[in-house]
């Protein structure tokens, strides 16, 4: 391969960076041995690379490091401030959620006795030993003699205490046991026996000869 000056100028940068083929390198070196101009261009270009690669060319402006350190410190402190601020925002939000939740649970939204069925009201104060009548297919327990106690064909009536009836899932009749139905709505739960034994009307207890 034979190269001329223009080939050398075109490849001179690649030559310095070892980015030319072996054949091109040999051809360029053969040309450089006989061409003073191209040798001058090569030397000058190599000097440019060396001079600028020295690392001392660009001086930092006076005070650069001090100003940089100050900005880094400001950023770090702003992060700390942001972290603290985020913590307090989260803490306040958590308290707000808890207080709001408690307030909401006590609000009228969850206390709408007038709009609920009597059957959904929770009985309280029914004497545990009160003898009641249930129908095998019914869902309510009644005071014996309740006119709303109906027995359909095939159904049987059974006597039991109010406590047993409630334990088996029967609800109090909203007519004959109305006095025991709460106007408040509470979460249904099984109450212990003694709570049932309050203010017994004598005529409704087993002791009364019912």
């Amino acid at each position: 391969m034979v190269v001329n000056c223009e080939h050398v100028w075109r490849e001179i940068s690649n030559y310095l960076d070892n980015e030319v083929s072996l054949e091109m390198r040999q051809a360029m070196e053969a040309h450089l041995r006989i061409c003073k101009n191209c040798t001058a261009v090569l030397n000058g270009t190599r000097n440019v690379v060396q001079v600028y690669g020295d690392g001392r060319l660009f001086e930092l402006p006076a005070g650069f490091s001090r100003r940089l350190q100050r900005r880094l410190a400001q950023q770090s402190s702003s992060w700390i401030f942001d972290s603290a601020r985020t913590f307090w925002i989260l803490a306040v939000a958590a308290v707000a959620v808890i207080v709001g939740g408690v307030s909401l649970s006590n609000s009228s939204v969850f206390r709408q006795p007038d709009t609920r069925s009597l059957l959904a009201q929770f009985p309280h104060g029914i004497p545990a030993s009160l003898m009641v009548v249930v129908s095998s297919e019914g869902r309510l327990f009644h005071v014996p003699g309740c006119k709303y106690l109906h027995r359909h064909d095939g159904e049987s009536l059974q006597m039991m205490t109010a406590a047993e009836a409630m334990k088996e899932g029967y609800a109090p009749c909203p007519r004959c046991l109305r006095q025991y139905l709460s106007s408040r709505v509470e979460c249904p739960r099984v109450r212990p026996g003694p709570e049932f034994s309050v203010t017994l009307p004598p005529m409704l207890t087993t002791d009364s000869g019912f």
Partner: protein
Amino acid sequence: MGSFPDSTNIQVKMPAPADLREQDLIRRVQAGEKERFYELIKPYERRVYAAAFGVLRNEAEAEDAAQEAFLKALSHIRQFRSEARFSTWLIQIAVNEALMRRRKAHKEIMEPIGERQDDEGEYTPRDFADWREIPSEALERKEIREKLAAAVAALAEKYREVFLLRDVQHFSIEETAEALGISRASVKTRLLRARLMLRDLLAPGLGGAWLTRLPFEKGSKPW
């Protein structure tokens, strides 16, 4: 019969102590020791500033861009992966920051040397005077450094950026291409032009005049 390599010639390349220290610092900063970040970046202050200055050509803007680049590096330090060189990562952030600022500014800059010459055209050297090697101590002189900085600042943007990354920051051709979003071939073409143009700009002065006649007489213009 094949021969086995002489075990005495096998050399395991160990990281230099400075590299190990840097890696340790990076891990610490990534783990939350932010106060050690300056210690980590201190060796690269000048290079990061130079990268920003190369794009913006204004001292104040370059400083602001460089400092912003350091702050961004601190914010994203956990994204740094040890496969890359830390210096390359930092300088890329600085170049991106500077390029973004330049785009935002929409500056009308006087068209520098070489702007009209496209990448495909040939560049013919203007001066064939030989240029003797520059003594290292010459670079200690502020006026020489200023002449060199002025020469590189006179290059068109696209040549200056490639030249600064490749020859000042010592990026590889691939790293330069990646940082600027251009092809490898474009890097090589622009680099050739930048080097030849700088040679033409500097040869008369650094070929002897600046080195022998310094300090310059008042009003003299070596180039």
